[in-house]
Each structure stands twice: as C-alpha cells, then as structure tokens.
C-alpha cells in the first residue's frame, strides 16, 4: 500500500461527515410576520383528506367554502357564496356564488368547482373521514356506499354562478356544514393532472385568504396572503409560519423567547404555573370527555352499576386539580351553549345514591365487585386523569378500576373489538349542533364502541333528522340524550377546555367553541 493511501483514506472518512453537514445544513428563511405552533403537524392540506382541528385551520386559510363561521358567534357568514335561497320545504339550497370569488391563479370560482369537489368528498375512493357528514344530501349515502352513481346525488350546477343542493331531510345546520373545511372547493384540473401530489407548493392553486408558499416536513408551512382573494385588502398578516413542533415544552419555549406568537398546545406540567398570565386564554370548546362502558359483559351490563360509577365521579375535583385548561364538569354529552339546545340533565343524586345503586346491583360497599380495567390512551395527561378517577372511585364506592394505558392505535382497536371494560374517551364536535355528538351512539355508528344498541334511540335520532321545525327537532334530540344518559353506556366527565397562549401584540384573536381562529382576522399591534 503506498504510504499516501492511509492518510488519504482517513481524510476521506472525515470528508463524509463534512459533506453530510454541508448538504443538509439549514437554509436560512426570512422571518414571517406571524408565527404560530400547530398542536400537531399538518398531515395534508387537501380539504377532503384533512382530519384534525389544526389541519382544518390550514385548509381554511388556503381554501374558502360557500360559507364560513363567524369566530365570535359561530353564525354562518357568506364566503365564496354571496347569498342563498332555501326552498319552502327546507330541502333545496340554491347558492349564488360571489363574482369576486377567485382562485389564486385568477380564474373565477364556479359552481362546477363545488360540484366536482363535493362529489369528490363523497366518493368512497377519496376516502374522506368527513364524507358521511354530507349524507344529508339526497342520494349521497347511496353514492358513497357504491349503491348509486354520482349522477344520483342531489347536486347541480345549472349556471356557473349557481350551485344547487337537494337534501333528503331538512337540516337546520346545513350552512354550518357547508362552512366545514372538508366542503372547500378544489381544482379538478390539478387533481387530474398531478394526482395526490397536487398539493405541492409549486402546483397548488387555492381560493382562500392565503396560498401555500412552502412546506417543510416536520418543520413548517409558510402561508402568504392571496392577493386574488376578495378580502385581501382587509387581511393584515402577509406571511404566516405554521410550525410543526413535537414537544409541547419546546413550543412553550419558542413562545417565551418570542419566536412564536401563538401556541395552542401547552405542556400539562406548565399549565398550572401559566395560570393568571394575561396572555393565557382559557375557554371551553365543543368537546366532551367521558367514560365508555362495554355493556356486553358483567358487571357493566347492569345499568345500575354504570349509573353508580357515573354518580360517583367527582367531576369538580377532576376539573379543579387534574385538568388545567379551563375544563368544566359535564353532566351531559352535549356541551351547553349550543344555540337552541338545552342539554339533557344527567343522573341526579350523590355518592349515597351511587352506593345504594351498587348495593342494589349486588355489590354492597363494593364487596364482590371484580377488579376492572380502565382503558386509556398512553399519554401523560390522560394517565393523570385515569389515576385520579380510579382513586376517587375506590374511595367512594370501594370498586377498583385499574388504569390500563395502551398505545393510541391499540387503544382504538381494543374499543372497536369491545376488548375492554371501561375506557376514557372523548369526542370533538365538528359543527355547532347536538347531532355532532348524539349521532355517535346510534346502534350502527362506528364510533359507538360500547355495544349499546337502542332501537328507541335510533328512532328518536331518525325523527329528529326528518323534523323541519327547529324547536321540535331540539326536543327530540334532547329526549335521545336523556335516554342515552339514563341507560348509561357512557358517563360524561367534563367539557374540554382549550388553553391558548397569544402574544399581547396580536389582535383579532377570538376564542370560541370550535377552537376556530381564522388567520385572515389576525393582526399585529
């Protein structure tokens, strides 16, 4: 071996890391006007594929549906649509599109765009989690399930500026549904040309207040104001970064050093110490935490046992000492504050009533009661709740519920297969109507996962679905909720809270039940 080979080889070994460093070193980015941390990395910007609340924020910054929700009142406001005519029977909506609605490439938004996008959302091949939300449209369920062709769906575009929707039953919250992020229009030409890759920044064309400038996996999305948008002149922030940060502690650090202006997911361990800060905003959202009972096996097949556990939950203590984000004790599944609906009052009575019920079921003082598993998702904050719950139930009733954490996907699977006894569950409402919660426990609902089936409950939901009068509909839904709480396949625990840390220099930030924060309304002092 020539004597130079050895040093050369060693040098080469050093050049490999040096090259790696130079190839992947950070590319500097000019600072955005406004930076916020997403609670979870954005999985997609495709309206039909998005599922999380935060994906919804991004989709709604990029795309604009027929309607949007006012963030303070949640009332539907015209967006891509200018006005709507509803037929006398409450079944046909005729949306008149705004002449100012344009795509970011300047092309007008047409009724054909909505027709294509809504059929795509409904199409089973798209695989959208939200397809079933539009099954109030005539023929939509049949199309989604493959029983009817697309032409049978009650959608039409008789003129470029007129989009007509025929429902199969009156739906008082239909405009709110139309405002959901999944119903935003997408471009047929791009999807046909590029397939799934149509969302890449250099290809995507959108019609919302922002357009997508950059997407770095695990790092950020950069949004830039869409100058073609009808309200562009009123949109204050020009460049917005949405950061994907895994660690909540890191997100908080970024906020504390001024590198982020808004953080929506905060570490549970720090929340208590953040209380009292003027920039911490706590509010309840349209989401409920509850216990699911597997009603197919003893002892939980006995409604008295489930009621006893329900009554013995110390909701106030859990909300005060364990949850830290402004949660409120829940006695119903549907959160209060939905317009036109008063949630059913849950079971009344205290610990004494709970003990009596348990004794009646054959377990006086908890004697003879088998140890049960309390299934929950393996997550730091959920574990604290499971442990507190288990301790208080043992104290109150003498029953043992052993916390059993499972990795999230396993936890979902165990519930789906009914391989559990009691589990900690939750549901986030999608639109401001009780049906977004109550539909969950219909006998054939996929997310029921309790084994509880009630023909009466299904019938009440069906009647409510066909009822045109809002007050009578609300009464029917309330009856259904009463039945659900009486028979107790679930025990509500709390209405979820949401903590937002928002920099004092930000204006236009509103908290609301749906945790919606339209970026176009934000500004800096």
């Amino acid at each position, binding site marked *: *071996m020539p004597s130079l080979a050895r040093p050369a*080889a060693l040098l080469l070994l050093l050049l490999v*890391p040096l090259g790696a460093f130079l190839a992947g070193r950070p590319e*500097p980015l000019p600072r955005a006007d406004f930076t916020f941390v997403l609670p979870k990395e954005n999985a997609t910007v495709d309206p039909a594929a998005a599922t999380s609340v935060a994906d919804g924020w991004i989709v709604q910054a990029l795309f604009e549906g027929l309607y949007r929700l006012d963030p303070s009142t949640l009332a539907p406001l015209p967006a891509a649509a200018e006005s709507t005519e509803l037929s006398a029977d409450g079944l046909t909506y005729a949306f008149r599109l705004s002449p100012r609605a344009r795509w970011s490439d300047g092309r007008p938004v047409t009724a054909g765009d909505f027709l294509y996008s809504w059929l795509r959302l409904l199409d089973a091949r798209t*695989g959208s989690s939200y397809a079933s939300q539009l099954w109030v449209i005539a023929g939509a369920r049949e199309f989604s399930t*493959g029983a009817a062709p697309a032409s049978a769906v009650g959608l039409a575009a008789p003129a470029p500026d007129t989009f007509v929707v025929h429902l199969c039953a009156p739906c008082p919250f239909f405009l709110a549904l139309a405002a959901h992020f999944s119903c935003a229009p997408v471009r047929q030409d791009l999807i046909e040309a590029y397939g799934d890759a149509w969302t890449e920044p250099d290809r995507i064309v959108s019609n919302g207040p922002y357009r997508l400038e950059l997407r770095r996996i695990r790092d950020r999305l950069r949004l830039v104001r869409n100058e073609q948008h009808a309200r562009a002149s009123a949109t204050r922030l020009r460049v917005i970064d949405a950061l994907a940060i895994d660690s909540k502690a890191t997100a908080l650090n970024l906020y504390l050093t001024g590198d982020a202006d808004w953080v929506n997911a905060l570490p549970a361990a720090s929340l208590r110490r953040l209380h009292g800060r003027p920039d911490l905003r706590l509010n309840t959202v349209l989401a409920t935490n509850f216990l699911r009972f597997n009603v197919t096996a003893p002892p939980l097949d006995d409604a008295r046992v489930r009621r006893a556990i329900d009554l013995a939950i110390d909701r106030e203590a859990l909300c005060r000492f364990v949850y830290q984000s402004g949660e409120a004790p829940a006695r119903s599944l549907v959160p209060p504050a939905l317009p036109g609906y008063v949630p059913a009052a849950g079971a009344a009575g205290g610990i004494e009533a709970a003990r009596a019920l348990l004794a009646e079921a054959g377990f006086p003082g908890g004697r003879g009661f088998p140890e049960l598993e309390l299934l929950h998702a393996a997550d730091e904050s959920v574990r604290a709740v499971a442990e507190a719950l288990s301790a208080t139930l043992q104290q109150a009733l003498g029953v043992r519920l052993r916390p059993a954490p499972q990795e999230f996907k396993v936890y*979902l699977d*165990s519930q789906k297969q009914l391989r559990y006894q009691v589990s900690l569950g939750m549901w*986030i409402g999608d639109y401001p109507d009780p049906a977004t919660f109550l539909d969950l426990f219909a006998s054939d609902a996929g997310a029921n996962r309790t084994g509880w089936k009630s023909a009466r409950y299904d019938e009440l939901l069906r009647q409510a679905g066909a009822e045109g009068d809002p007050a009578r509909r609300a009464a029917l839904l309330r009856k259904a909720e009463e039945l659900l709480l009486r028979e107790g396949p679930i025990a509500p625990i709390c209405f979820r809270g949401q903590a937002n840390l928002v920099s004092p220099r930000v204006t236009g930030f509103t908290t609301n039940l749906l945790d919606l924060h339209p970026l176009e309304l934000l500004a800096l002092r």
Partner: protein
Amino acid sequence: MLTYVLRKLLSVALLLVLVFTGAFFLMRLAPGGPFDAERALPPAIERSIAARFQLDQPLLVQYGSYLADVFLRGDLRPSFSYRDTSVNQIIAETLPRSAALGAAALLLALFLGVPAGLLAAARRGHARDLLLSALFALALAVPNFVLATLLVLLFSFVLPWFPVAGFSSLRHLVLPALALGVPLAAAIARLTRAGVLEALASPYIRTARAKGLAPGAVLARHALRAGLVPVVTYLGPACAAILTGSLVVEKIFAIPGMGSFFVTSVMNRDYTLAMGVLLLYFGLLAVLNALVDVSLHLIDPRVELQ
C-alpha cells in the same frame, strides 16, 4: 478488495430482505391499523382506502408486490400518515437535516474526544487523567434529554446566545450538536484512552522509546494509530445511529429530521414510513460497518478483510 466489496454488497442485500420480511409481518401483527381514528369511517370508505393502499389483498400478495416495489424499483410507496407524500420524498427531505446535525456532532466529538483521550492516556494515573476520566464518565452518564434541557436553560434563557429550537440558521445547530456530540465525545475519549494505554504497554513502543524517539512522537505516531482501532470500530454503528437522527435531541430542539420517525411511524401504523426508515438504518449500518473494516485494514494492516 474487490471480492470483499462484492461479498459485502450481497450480504447487505440479504440482510435488507430479511429486515424487510421481519418488519412487514411484525407490523401487520400489531393491533390497530393506519386508518383507525376516533372518528370511525363508514365501512364502504374504509374498504376503498384499504384497496387504494393494497391492504385488501392476501398478505403474501401484498408482501410480494411491496418487496418488488422496494427492491426492484426503489419505490418505498406513499406514506400513510403524510397523506400526499411518498416515503422516498419524506426521507429525501428529512435525512439530510438529521445527517447534517449528526455530522456536526460527530466532528465535534472527534475533535474533542480523540485529543482528550490522548491527553488522559499520556499521564496515566495523574491528576489530569483522573479529572478527565471523571468528566468522561459524567458526560456519558447524563442522559441527553437532561443535557439538552440544561443547554437550553443556560444558553437560551439565562444567557440568550442561541435560539431555543428550530432549524433556520447555523446558530440553531450549536446547542443540538453539543447535546448530541458531548456524550459521543466522552465515549470516543474513553476508547482512545484505553486503546492508547494498551498500545503504550506493547513491545514495539518500548522499542521506539529505546531507539530514542521523543515521548510526544511515540504517542502521536505509534500509540495513537493503534489506539484508534477501537474508536474506528465503534464509529461505524455510532455513525449509523447519529446520522439517522436522535429522537430526543430532535424533539427538544425541533429539528425537522427523521429521528422521530423511528417511533412515530410505528405508533401511527404508518407501515410504509416505518419500513423506509428501518431499511435505511440497517442499510446505512451495514455500509458503515464495511467502511470501518476497510479503514481498519488501512490503519492497521494486521487487520484482514474477510
């Protein structure tokens, strides 16, 4: 040398097929699927997604076509969790960032570790050796999340010199490279020290000294070369781990690398992404080990290539 390279390549390919097979079936055995969520999908839609990702076919058919895609076409398929991105794209985008951070940490570790080990070995048993050895032990014992958190506290909050997290300038790399590199430097220093001490005890060093070579020259020219053998051996696997990213350090400093995929892809049942990062890791490990064999052979000709 050529036969060595060819044989090595063949064994790497075989290893990757084995890893692929094991991972494929193990992942399918794990309960829960990629599309399970709180929101249950209507059965018709669930079936259509399964068909789109070819999850509706018999397992062996899936295995065969996936194997062909990966090994014949180099197509790792679309990711399940990043809905509109392929695994090839994800790795192409995130690996260079992890590798850049890893390389910075590695260079730091080498430039700190080797001289420190040499310094300690030069005065065995003296105060300097004891102090340095204690420091190495401490740096190895402190878990990297503690070190990372301390670095953030000290150099981002108490002394606001470096950003807390992110990846938009070279300054963003300093703290994570330290957090990743310091324990590695300690490991390298300990190995260097042990290797050099062993070499110093061997007869050829005595010969060199007897011939009147200056102590510094003995150390740097003869003892160090032999002392580096364990370091280089250790560097192969260490490189594979450090270049593919550290879960903890990337998480704390919000480095958009691929370190967290080793855990999150499995948790999300993102079968294709998990497979992609596994194959990459094992492939890199095998290649680096082969490189180590070659460089050992070059450093010390007594080491044969087999």
